[in-house]
């Protein structure tokens, strides 16, 4: 009735989604980075496992890229930015945490309701991977709008990209070039983010978006 390849892929995908929820739940920047690292590790495991069951070696490259960039390089770099800029470590969510979680569950339900009817004639694993990854993408967006701190918005952006990779590895026959392109565009985005964070900090002395908004000259 069940096969291990399907079950394990499914479960690992769910771990990635669960980590997105854990990202929404965190209140401290370092804890946020730890969870982000865990999500990247889960994603690398998904890619490697998919490579194994689909018998396509190039997914191992994706797994290695994810492991190297997302699980090691970006967290370390973000950590250095946090330490160097001496950012206030506690996250102040714009919405309450409970409310954000409720919104998150509704978003995941929405993505399931959306994906399942559309992809009715494709394989079960692809469908569920798509539902899961759409959930991760939406949760990343939710994270970007519900957090005031620029660093946690960057983490939200990176987790959106995790969702995209999750979708890409679930579909059999996705060429490596696409994944490489996505990975490197994210890397470039990350570098730009890093530079921006430094500049914002230098100019406005804060990374809190609500305070920065007052500099736009719109009176509240």
């Amino acid at each position: 009735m069940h096969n291990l390849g399907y079950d394990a892929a499914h479960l690992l995908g769910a771990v990635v989604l669960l980590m997105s929820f854990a990202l929404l739940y965190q209140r401290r920047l370092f804890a946020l980075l730890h969870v982000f690292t865990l999500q990247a590790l889960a994603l690398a495991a998904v890619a490697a496992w998919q490579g194994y069951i689909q018998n396509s070696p190039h997914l191992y490259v994706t797994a290695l890229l994810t492991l190297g960039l997302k699980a090691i390089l970006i967290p370390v770099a973000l950590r250095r930015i946090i330490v160097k800029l001496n950012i206030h470590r506690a996250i102040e969510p714009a919405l309450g945490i409970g409310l954000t979680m409720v919104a998150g569950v509704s978003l995941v339900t929405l993505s399931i309701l959306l994906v399942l009817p559309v992809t009715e004639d494709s394989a079960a694993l692809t469908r569920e991977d798509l539902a899961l990854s759409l959930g991760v993408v939406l949760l990343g967006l939710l994270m970007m709008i519900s957090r005031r701190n620029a660093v946690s918005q960057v983490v939200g952006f990176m987790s959106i990209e995790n969702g995209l990779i999750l979708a890409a590895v679930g579909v059999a026959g996705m060429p490596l070039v696409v994944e490489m392109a996505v990975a490197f565009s994210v890397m470039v985005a990350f570098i730009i983010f890093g530079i921006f964070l430094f500049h914002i900090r230098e100019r406005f002395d804060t990374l809190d978006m609500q305070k920065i908004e007052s500099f736009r000259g719109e009176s509240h």
Partner: protein
Amino acid sequence: MSVFLQIVQMALVLALAPLLTGFVRWVKSRLLGRRGAPPWQPYRDIARLLRKEVVLARNASWLFRATPYMMFTAIWLAAALVPTFTTQLALAPTADLIALIALLGSARFFLALAGMDIGTSFGGLGSSREMMIAALAEPAMLMVVFSVAILVRTTSLAEIADFMMSGAVGLRISLALALITLIMVAIAENARIPIDNPATHLELTMVHEAMVLEYSGRHLALVEGASMLKLLLYMALIACIFAPWGMATPAAGGGPFVLWGMATFVAKLAAGGVLLAVFETSIAKMRVFRYGEFLGGALLLSLLGAIFLYVSRGV
């Protein structure tokens, strides 16, 4: 045969519960670099409490005196329902997950009433917090029950264990989410560290200890015994639903299989105790105002688990 096994089960949970609590405390103090009391210390504590006289407040009502007995009976009965080493128990037909939750709920109800009975501020504070936790933990627990019941098509614990052992389920997102939820609920219900600190008295953040502050002598022994049984019950429940392997089944028969079931049960408890101790030492106590987030998170995870049942293949 099944009646005999049921009696063995009731004796076994009663005998093992203090040892489990003592073991968790011992592992925790080892992890903290202390020598710690030996694992069998809770037996001595309970024996000492049973010898001591009961001191009652002048305004204590019958409810206050009756609660320890009611609570202990309800939890002991609940612990007897959960299959630990075999699924062939005399009470197995009544071992329904919803009945189990009802038994635990009524025990909590009486304890919360007793907490308010004397009229001390600590008791009322503990009771109100306990009810707040219960209001969030019970729906989460029921959602777990529903997820499992939809998957297995029964709420009978013995049948769930048999079904899980047959291997027809495989790895499932819903079950993983249900497991996480059940662990979070178990932590909250047993007053373990992120929610409550089981080791302290007279702290403003305590929940369980605040309610039982007025108890003494054999009443306190019963209340403490009931909370030890509750810890064992939750571990047995998690083991029964998510890791039933090793349990004796009707197909396997008795004799050596029952003994093997007992050995694996003790091993599961030991593993659970070590994990609990490691978890508790590696995490800090939560502020009371964050309980809602923790348990609300548990509720949402269980809801997500139920949603995923309809996504996964072949429900």
